[in-house]
């Protein structure tokens, strides 16, 4: 369009490349987090203490990845002074990295509970909690897909679908709680082992909530709409 045309696209292309790298880092982090949740629940089910310990150890890697993404976002904001869609993309990435880090903490929390349980078998056969886990991990994957698509209509469709799935996870969580309470009522000696599984179920339920937060960030990136989250930040029991 003018004499600067030969320069500006090059700088812009470089920025696009950097934004692509940011996205790749988030996808990588998401993969680490999904694996952590899967491994933590598998280790709980199979009573594999070593595997639980590896989940705890690998959480440091997730935390470090979050910090790297955070530093990279700050660097991009400082250097590129992003506007409009670019700014929303970086801000959303920053927030999603935080959500993923917290999901990693939930996996670590489940692994710690598993180790605390020691040689004790779970109070009841693990059926509903793994189902909750599968649904929560599926929600996480789809929320990331929504973010990467940057397609407003697509994000809205996924958002509505995930809301339904989140309700199903909540229902399962309520069922797990009710079942465990029944077991405690029938025999108060079950209280300790019931509490362990309550914590696990709570952590898995929170993963689904975090996936909802991610899809809200995907919506913000694609449309600029800020949706108020209904979920509360809670700490994972150590």
């Amino acid at each position, binding site marked *: *369009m003018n004499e600067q045309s030969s320069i*500006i696209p090059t700088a*812009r292309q470089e920025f696009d490349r950097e934004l692509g790298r940011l996205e790749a880092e988030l996808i990588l982090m998401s993969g680490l987090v999904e694996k952590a949740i899967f491994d933590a629940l598998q280790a709980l089910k199979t009573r594999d203490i070593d595997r639980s310990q590896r989940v705890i150890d690998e959480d440091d890697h997730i935390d470090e990845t979050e910090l790297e993404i955070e530093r990279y976002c700050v660097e991009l904001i400082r250097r590129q*002074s992003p*506007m*409009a869609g670019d700014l929303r993309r970086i801000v959303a990435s920053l927030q999603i990295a935080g959500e993923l880090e917290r999901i990693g903490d939930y996996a670590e929390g489940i692994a710690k509970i598993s180790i605390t349980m020691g040689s004790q078998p779970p109070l009841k056969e693990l059926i509903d909690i793994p189902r909750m886990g599968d649904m929560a991990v599926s929600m996480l994957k789809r929320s990331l897909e929504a973010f990467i698509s940057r397609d407003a209509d697509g994000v809205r469709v996924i958002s509505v679908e995930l809301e339904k799935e989140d309700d199903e996870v909540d229902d399962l969580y309520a069922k797990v709680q009710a079942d465990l309470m029944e077991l405690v009522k029938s025999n108060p000696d079950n209280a300790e082992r019931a509490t362990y599984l309550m914590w696990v179920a709570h952590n898995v339920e929170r993963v689904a909530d975090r996936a909802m937060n991610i899809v809200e960030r995907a919506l913000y990136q694609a449309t600029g709409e800020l949706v108020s989250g209904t979920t509360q930040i809670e700490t994972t029991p150590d």
Partner: protein
Amino acid sequence: MALNDTDLLSQAGSVENILKFDDIEPVLESNDLSVAYSGQTAVSGVSLQVPKNSVVSLIGPSGCGKSTLLRCFNRMNDLIPSASVTGKVNFAGQDIYAQDVDPTEIRFRIGMVFQRPNPFPKSIYENVAFGPRINGMTDDLDEVVETSLRRAAVWDEVKDRLNDSGLSVSGGQQQRICIARALAVNPEIVLMDEPASALDPISTQAIEQLIQELSSEVTIIIVTHNMQQATRISDYAAVMMAGEERIGRMIEYGTNEQVFGNPKDERTEAYVTGRIG
């Protein structure tokens, strides 16, 4: 989307992308304003409402007609013999291009500050007193000079050297003296054409702060290429764009938050994110 497509860039913004104020009377409003130089259209069909005591940025790539549009708002284009203006610019209840309107009076009420500081080769005092003096003010002008220099946030720096040449101070101070000169005749609107582009970062910051302070009592329309500056200082932004035929059109007008945060027109998005420029 092929953003370099000539037809696309030449299109005016759709009506819903142009902010209209239903609840307030704009201090300045252009209706279907067009400018031509020697019969060649440079700006076409701009309808823009400027609320009182707001800061409105005009942004867009080089050659899109921002400065041409700005000069229409106080009839500065009258000074260019080949320029012709059609459409209306309503200010204070009248069309400033009506036959019975004195352009000199308009230029007092709608002042202008240019890209490069242009103090007269006179003392700082005389630079500021110039407007009131030729406006017929014969009283003691000391108070007007001091008030204007204070409003332009340069009084403390020049109060002990008012008799020095306006050209003897730094570029940033010269620009603020020029702003004081414009303010001395109590304008309702000040037009600024890249007022900080020739200044260092500290002077730029002083000008930006000044613009924000002045906006409580004066309306400011500013042309700037600095996107961050526009984001920092303006309440509203109008985006101009021209295709290969070089006819500038307004493609979007909205709040600062809209234009720089979530533009409605994809050409605005492309411009503010540096994809076209």
